């Protein structure tokens, strides 16, 4: 092997090195392009998800407009009674304002349906004996002044005096925490 052969081998090795360099750069480019394409595909999927979620949200908002307006309208009256103490005080005030002959008053806490967003209710079990007009007017006023109050049960029977009636009522006032 003479020096010309050595020179050819060296040049050949250099050319091979350049070729390897080109192939390496191309490989890096391909890897980066593949990574970019994968990320772009993932971004497109996320964008699609955003579009679907936004459309679903808009649909849900539209379909629940009446319900949400309803809630907004009722939140005010409901929020007035948040604790059992509030509810009892309210009942006592209304009974006192009615100026009725009360035989018994009993207050207690009742649980509502499981999973309800109303935290519970205060139940008042009341017994009155008074004249028909006073009792029923009081009940009517109570139901109109406290629109969230539920008259759970009402029993009317004859009173001890001929002009009186006896009214046993069970009233539930929900407790609401906004």
């Amino acid at each position, binding site marked *: 092997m*003479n*020096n*010309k*052969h050595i020179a050819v081998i060296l*040049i*050949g090795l250099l*050319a091979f090195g*350049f*070729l390897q*360099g*080109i192939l390496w*750069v*191309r490989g*890096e*480019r391909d890897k*980066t*392009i593949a*990574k*970019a394409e994968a*990320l772009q595909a*993932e*971004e497109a999927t*996320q*964008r699609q*998800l*955003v579009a679907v*979620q*936004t459309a679903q*949200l808009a649909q*849900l908002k539209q379909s*629940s407009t*009446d*319900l*949400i307006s*309803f*809630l907004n*309208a*009722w*939140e*005010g*009256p*409901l929020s007035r009674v948040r604790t059992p103490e509030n509810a009892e005080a309210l009942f006592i005030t209304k009974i006192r304002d009615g100026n009725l002959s009360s035989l018994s008053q009993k207050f207690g806490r009742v649980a509502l349906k499981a999973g309800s*967003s*109303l935290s519970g209710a205060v139940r008042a079990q009341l017994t009155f004996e008074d004249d028909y007009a006073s009792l*029923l007017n009081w*009940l*009517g006023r109570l*139901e109109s002044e406290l*629109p*969230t109050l*539920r*008259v*759970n*049960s*009402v*029993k*009317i*029977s*004859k009173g001890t005096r001929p002009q009186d009636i006896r009214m046993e009522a069970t009233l539930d006032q*929900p407790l609401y925490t906004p």
Partner: protein
Amino acid sequence: MILPKDIADDFKTDRKDITPPLPAILRLVPILFYLTVVSAMILCGLFLYQLKLANDNILAAKSGLAEAQAQVVTAAAERKQLEAQILRATDVQGWVEGSRPLQPLVVAVARSIGEEASLADLKIDRDEESPSNLNLAMRIGTSSATQLEETTDAIARENFRLLQPEQTLAEGQINYRATIVPLSVVPAETATP
């Protein structure tokens, strides 16, 4: 011109330091080398430019992805909040539906009792499962056959429907029981406090 040695001597001594030429095929090697250098410059330039573009695309895609993921999270949170509000509204709606005033019904029943009859007692209870439905039980002291009809008509005028009525007549008293279902004339969503 080179003459054969047996005809004439050219007096030249052999030059031993000069290496024999390479075979013709190996002369392509330098040409290939120059081509490799030129193509390496062109191709590497092109590939590096494409690599830069791909890197820019990666940065843009990463930023877009982060933005989209943030939007997904925001939309999910907004939806969760809305669903909670809907659930709350549904609960409130259920409560309001089951809180229809009873006083007008009691008054209607009491007023329907004629002069020759008397209301011994009246009991209205809300159904536990469906509080908008009412269980009515009453005793009317009467000898009139039409009294019960008048009372049930009065209940119907209050927009209630009587279901499963049961009545027994004993010693001049009518015992009457029925389930009262409201005719939902006003949808609960439109009810106002």
